Structures are given as structure tokens and as C-alpha cells.
């Protein structure tokens, strides 16, 4: 598997999803998974997959001994793997910027020279593909498609690409041609395409012109929360709290949240609205709230991470995600895990599998306001969504998603 992020060092939903899926597949048994990421930190869980760092894979030969390698990358990778990989260098990459181990450096993030890093990643993939014997190649998101294609050319094994998002979701229509090119190339070369929702599947089929029988939806799932997070205690509060949690960008539809809040506040006063997160539309939203004269009831917390997210959820009575376009959207599932009734837009992928949430069109602020009012005013509504939501989300587990992916693998191998 080729991925770009892996917990605990993650920047977005991609890492969480790749991790969950890998673990889920391992739980199904009889799987030998190698997971390649650009830059491992050493604290990644290794019990269900072998982690190979692209920055630990030599592309040009260096005569180093075991102890040296052990000292340099021992905490990240087994030195034996380094030497195995070194035996399979297929071309002279000395002209490239390599280090003392003959490896290329990676940032593992989303730097300005991202395209160069993607290219380097695919060079490294050539070495790995020659070393590791595999049955299927699986690439997570567009950054790793070139690597997947390269590995497929080397090994002749089937390539599965996993579309966690497309550039149409990220850019709301203003697609970057280079990114589109990479995505399209990946899809064309793939033997099968997995999408995280039917919504994304439709995009892949319609916008990228891919044959429908090559595209399958495998919905994401969630990891059960630790007891520690579930037991978080928050100070008692006297007012209802309605929370928006996510990047404050055009994709997430924050302005619809402000409008719905304004409507609710016309009728009920003892409600607080929280916009947690940061993003390029944050200032605009602050101004909008002020212009609507609801700034006193509207709070901006800035970016929350780790435990803070769960503290915020625990203190909330309603969670809301009015995303304009969301390939899947894992955060409402997390809110449900914390027992928070959720309102989500019909334009998000997770709406396809969730029943015990309120689904609205993102632009229908009347419906959003109605739903908020109903949850904070009618105890039955709150209780039903909370209890049924919890029960429902606990059924959405990664091993089921993993089993579906394995099913696809089997079909490809036996073809």
C-alpha cells in the first residue's frame, strides 16, 4: 500500500482513513500488508503492517554497514529491510539529491514542491516494488497514484487506487489541471477504483470518464474511541451549545451555519454557537456574525487538536456539518460516538450510510435552523438521536470495510 499519512502524525482525514482500513483488513486475517509512507517518525503502530519509509529506501548504492544503518534509521525500520531494498536499486540516481544512505529526503507533508516529492516517491516505489513480493498494489489518494502505476509496471500486479477525495471536492470546480492529470492517469491505469462514497464514485465516473463497473464504493468507518476520551468531563453549563467543527473554508459551508444560527436566535436566546477550527474564511465569518448582531452568542475557538476536539464535542448539544461537498466526512461519526446529535448536509458522503442524523441540503438554512431548534427544544429528539446515533455508529467498523476491499482484491487476483 502506498499512502501519504499515517497516524499519529496526520494532517487530515486521509491518514486516519488509511490507517483504519489497513487495520480493518488485518483483522480479517491472512493478510501481509506493507505500508509505504514518505516519512515515518518511528512511533507508528507496526503490529498489523510493515511500515517502509520512502526516505529510508536507498535509490543509489552506499557501502554502509549494519551498525551505521541501525544507528541512522533503526527506530523507524528494520535495517535488514534497508539492505534488501539496496539489493534492488534499478538505476543510477546519483544525480539526484541523495543523502549518506543513498535515500531521498521527504517532508511527508504538503510542501510547495509537492509535485517533485510525488515524483521522487514514485522513483522510490520502483525499488520497493522490486524488493517486496506482493499480490495487489493499493494507492491512497492522488499523491501516491504515480507510485502505484510505477509499481504496477514493475511487477505486473493489479493496481487498486483509493479515492479519498478528488480535486473537484477540494477546489469546488476550479480544478488544477496538473492534479487532474495525475488523478486521471491513476484512474486509467488502475485495475479497480475504490471510492469512499457514492458521491465520489459519481464524480469519478462522470468527471473523469471512468467505466462504472471499474469503480466500487467502500464507505469509511471509525475506530472505537478510547474510554479516556469517552469519560471526558466538562464543567456544567446552563446554555445549549451548537458546534461547527472543521476547517473554515468554502468547502465546509460555514456561512450557512451562521445564517441558521441567526434564525434560531430570533426565537431562543439561551443558545451558544461555536465555530471551532481555522481557515481562510474565518475572518469573513466573524464579520458576518457581527453584521447579524449575533456576535455575542457566537464563539470562534480557533484550531482545535487531539483531546480538545473531544472536549468540545462533549460540551456540545448539537453538531453540525453543512459541507457543500464532502467526499465522506468522518467528523459527524466522531460526534455521534461522543453522543452528540448531528446535522449533516445531504451533499456529504457519510449521509449515504447514516440514518440517525438529520440530513439537510447545505443551502437550506431554514431546515438547518428547524433541526437545531428541534434538538434543543424537544428532549425526545435529542435523546433519540443521541441513543440511536451511538448504537448506529458503533456498527460502522473498519473490519467490515476491510472485508469489502479484500473481496475486491480476490476478484482482481482471480481474474
Amino acid at each position: 500500500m502506498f499512502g501519504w499519512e499515517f497516524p499519529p502524525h496526520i494532517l487530515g482525514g486521509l491518514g486516519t482513513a488509511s490507517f483504519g482500513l489497513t487495520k480493518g483488513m488485518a483483522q480479517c486475517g491472512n493478510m501481509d500488508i506493507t505500508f509505504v509512507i514518505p516519512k515515518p517518525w518511528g512511533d507508528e503502530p507496526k503490529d498489523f503492517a510493515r511500515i517502509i519509509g520512502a526516505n529510508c529506501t536507498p535509490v543509489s548504492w552506499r557501502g554502509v554497514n549494519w551498525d551505521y544503518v541501525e544507528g541512522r534509521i533503526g527506530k523507524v525500520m528494520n535495517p535488514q529491510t534497508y539492505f534488501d531494498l539496496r539489493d534492488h536499486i534499478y538505476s543510477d540516481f546519483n544525480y539526484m539529491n541523495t543523502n549518506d544512505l543513498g535515500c531521498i529526503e521527504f517532508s511527508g507533508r504538503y510542501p510547495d514542491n509537492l509535485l517533485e516529492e510525488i515524483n521522487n516517491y514514485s522513483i522510490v516505489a520502483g525499488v520497493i516494488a522490486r524488493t517486496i513480493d506482493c499480490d495487489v498494489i493499493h494507492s491512497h489518494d492522488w499523491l501516491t497514484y504515480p507510485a502505484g502505476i510505477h509499481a504496477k509496471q514493475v511487477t505486473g500486479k493489479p493496481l487498486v487506487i483509493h479515492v479519498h477525495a478528488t480535486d473537484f471536492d477540494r477546489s469546488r470546480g476550479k480544478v488544477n489541471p496538473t492534479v487532474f492529470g495525475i488523478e486521471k492517469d491513476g484512474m486509467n491505469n488502475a485495475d479497480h477504483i475504490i471510492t469512499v462514497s457514492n458521491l465520489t464514485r459519481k464524480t469519478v465516473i462522470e468527471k473523469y470518464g471512468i467505466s462504472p463497473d471499474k469503480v466500487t464504493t467502500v464507505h469509511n468507518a471509525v475506530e472505537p474511541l478510547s474510554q479516556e476520551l469517552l469519560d471526558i468531563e466538562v464543567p456544567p453549563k446552563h446554555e445549549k451549545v451548537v458546534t461547527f467543527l472543521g476547517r473554515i473554508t468554502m468547502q465546509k459551508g460555514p456561512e450557512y451555519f451562521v445564517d441558521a444560527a441567526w434564525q434560531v436566535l430570533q426565537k431562543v436566546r439561551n443558545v451558544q454557537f461555536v465555530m471551532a477550527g481555522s481557515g481562510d474564511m474565518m475572518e469573513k465569518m466573524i464579520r458576518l456574525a457581527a453584521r447579524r448582531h449575533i456576535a455575542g452568542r457566537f464563539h470562534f475557538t480557533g484550531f482545535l487538536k487531539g483531546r480538545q476536539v473531544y472536549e468540545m464535542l462533549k460540551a456540545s448539544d448539537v453538531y453540525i456539518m453543512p459541507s457543500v461537498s464532502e467526499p465522506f466526512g468522518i467528523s459527524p461519526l466522531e460526534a455521534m460516538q461522543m453522543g452528540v446529535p448531528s446535522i449533516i448536509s445531504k451533499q456529504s458522503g457519510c449521509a449515504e450510510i447514516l440514518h440517525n442524523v438529520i440530513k439537510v441540503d447545505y443551502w437550506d438554512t431554514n431546515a438547518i435552523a428547524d433541526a437545531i431548534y428541534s434538538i434543543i427544544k424537544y428532549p425526545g429528539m435529542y435523546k433519540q438521536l443521541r441513543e440511536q446515533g451511538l448504537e448506529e455508529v458503533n456498527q460502522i467498523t473498519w473490519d467490515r470495510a476491510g472485508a469489502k476491499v479484500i473481496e475486491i482484491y480476490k476478484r482482481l487476483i482471480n481474474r
Partner: protein
Amino acid sequence: MKSICFYFQIHQPFRLKTYRFFDIGNDHYYYDDFANEDIITRIAQRSYMPACEMLLEMIKENGKKFKVAFSISGTALEQLEQYVPEFIDSMKELSETGCVEFLSETYAHSLSSLVDPDEFVAQVKAHDEKIYQLFGQKPKVFRNTELIYDDDIALMVASMGFKGAITDGAKHILGWKSPNYLYKSASAPKLRLLLKNSKLSDDISFRFSNPDWGAYPLTADKYIDWIASLPEEEMLVNLFMNYETFGELQPRESGIFEFMKALPRFASEHGIEFMTPSEVVSKMKPVGELSVMHPISWADEARDTSAWMGNILQEEAVNKLYCLAERIRLVPDKRIHQDWNYLQASDHFYYMSTKHSSDGSVHSHYSPYDSPYAAFTNYMNVLSDFMIRVREQFPEEIENEELNSLLLTIRNQEKEIEELNREVEMLRNNIVKDTAGDFAPRVEGKEEKKPSTKSPAKKPAARKKTATKNETKKS
């Protein structure tokens, strides 16, 4: 000789319009007139009217040997009177043939039998009055909303003087027993029970035009053969279904009307006759007792009441609604009573059902809402407004009991004044007769009147004082 007992249900609720929380306290009209008119006229055109025509023809053709029964809810009757008056006329025509019986039920197609016995009795009376007024029949057999039934309901129904009741032949109640007999209630032995034969009923109403069904296509010949080949002792086949079966659930093209028309001929060939429920009750003897501890209904696979009162949403809505009942019975305002009726229709709670299995698809099919949550929100918004209106009728601090006695005094006051006036009049006449003087009677009249106005006025004043006292204590 075997008998077929047909009974058709007609019910339409007053569907609610989109009622936002902004409207609470401002807008007191709750109904989606457009949808209600549209649906009832469409169904009447496609189903009710042609089906009535069919029945009339069948009765005429078969020399009154063909008989059926109807149960029409009050809310459906109101809508039909308003939008499809010609349907009421053809129902009257059917009633006049003497081959059509009308059954009793709750006026609003409500769940009151499960929640509020007083309301239940009141609604049954209201419904029977309406039936009498329209069709000149006094119902003798009772059929509860969605065939909901248990031992407690049996007691209430029997005490209202009904001879029989109709319910579902739920498997978990019957066990090895067959629904094709007349039973009696365990709690009220005088009450006879007619049980729906689910298999044969659903063969017509749900499976008739389904080409995947093994017995497709169903012909009258085959169907009557099935009935005739039932064990000899099983004398009664109760076929209960929605009237929409004809023309709506089973479209006209499926041949459902022709199928029905052919039934009596094949039935008479096999010596099978048709009976109305009250004929069954009076002519047949019950074979045994049936005890039903927990309410059953004809809905879903479970045949229980979970389709209306199965989740937290439904519980809250039902409870909030019925905690108003006592207060509403004291209110004279007619519009409040009308809304009270319409809001009780079981359909509103059905829309809130969250059953996702195969039942769920039926639920969503009939619901005007996207989701049970939307149904709940809309209903609760309406109910919130309704509660405000009910509360506004009387000062809120006064308890129902106190209010009742106050209202009683006020009502008695009128009577008292009337009586006293009559007395004054009488005395005056006497005096005029007795004496020619005009001084004495006036004094007497004044004296008589004074206490009459004073004494009742005192009471509420005194009560109010205690009420305000209570209030200050509370605050």
C-alpha cells in the same frame, strides 16, 4: 356453510403543512390543504369511486347476497364531504341497499384507546354520531384504529354496548389456533372477536398484481377454491383490507375490479355466502376465548403498536399531546376541538417511526416527510403552538379540578339565574293578579335577584384569591 366477511377501511389524516418554529405562537392554521385535497381527490378518482360503483353493481347483480362492511374515520369523512361530496352520495346509496354495514371506530383514527380511556369513549361516540347523521346506521361492531386490541380495550368496548370487535389474527396470540372462527374476549366474554385472515387478505391487497408471487395470476376461481378447501369446521373467513386496494394499491389494469366482480358467482357455486360483521356476531357461536395481554395491531411484521409508539420521539409526542386532554375537555372553543381531533390521527406518529428493516420501507412510502426526524420536528412545532392556544383559554395556575368546579359554577349560575328569573316572573304575575298595587312586587323582585347574582360571583373570587396566593408562594 362457509362465510366470507369483507370489511374495508377508509382513512385519511389531515396532513400538516411545513410548520417552522417561527410560526409557533403566530400561525394557528396547521394543515396542508393542497396536499390533502390532492391526495383525497386522486385516491377517490382512482379507487374509492370506481370501487363503490363496483360494489353497487355486485350487490345488484347478486340479489343482495353480496355484503360488505366499511369503517371510515371521521377525518376521512370530513375530507370527503369537503372535496369529494359525490363519494358520500354513493356511500349513502350503498347504505340504502341494506347490504352494507358501517363499523364504529375512533373519530380521529387515534391512539386514544392506549392512552386515554375518557378520550377514547368520547371519540367513539362522536364517530358513531357522524355515521348516524350521514348514513342513518348505528354501528354495532367496533373496529379500533389499525386493529389495535387488547383485553383492556375489550372491556371499554363491551361497556359501550358493542356486540363484537374486529382485530388482527396475530400469530403470537393465536398460536396453533385458526383465525377462521368466531372468538370471544377473555376479559369481556360477551364481546365477540372477528380476526383478520392475514394470508388471504394480503393475497388480494398486496400480492394480487405481483408477478414474482408463486400464485400469480390470481383468479377468482382459484381464490374461492382456496377458501372452499379450508377444513370443514373453519366456517369464517375475514378479509379485511384498505379500500385503496382497489384501484390504488392494485391498479385498475391489474384486473382487480373484474376479480372482485367474479367472486360472488364462484362463491355461490361452492355454497359460500357473504356476511357482515354484525350478522356473523349474531348468527355464529364463538369457539373459545382469546386473551390478549399486550396490545396487538395489524401493522408490520411484529403486529404490535411499535409502529406508533415504539421510539423516544413517538413517546414524547404522544405524551405531550395527551397531557392536554383533560384541559381540552373543559374548553368550549370549537376550533381547538377540531385541531385536537386532527392532531390525534395515528398517522402523525407513524411518520416518526424509525424502523429500518423491511417495515421501514412501508413507513417511508406513506410518509410526506424525508425522515422520521423531520416528521417529529414539524409535529412538535405544531403541537407547541396548539399548547399555547389551549393554555391561553384559562389562567395557567388553576388546576384542572379547580377549573372544572369553577366552570361548573359558571354553568350552574346561568341555570340558577334562569330559574330565579322564572320565579320572579311567576311571583310578579301572581302579584299582578292578587293586588292592583305596584309597590310591593318590585321590592320582592329586587330581593330575589340580589343573592342570585351575588352568591355565585363570590365563589370564583374566593378561589382566585387562593390561586394567586399559591402562585406567590411558588415564585
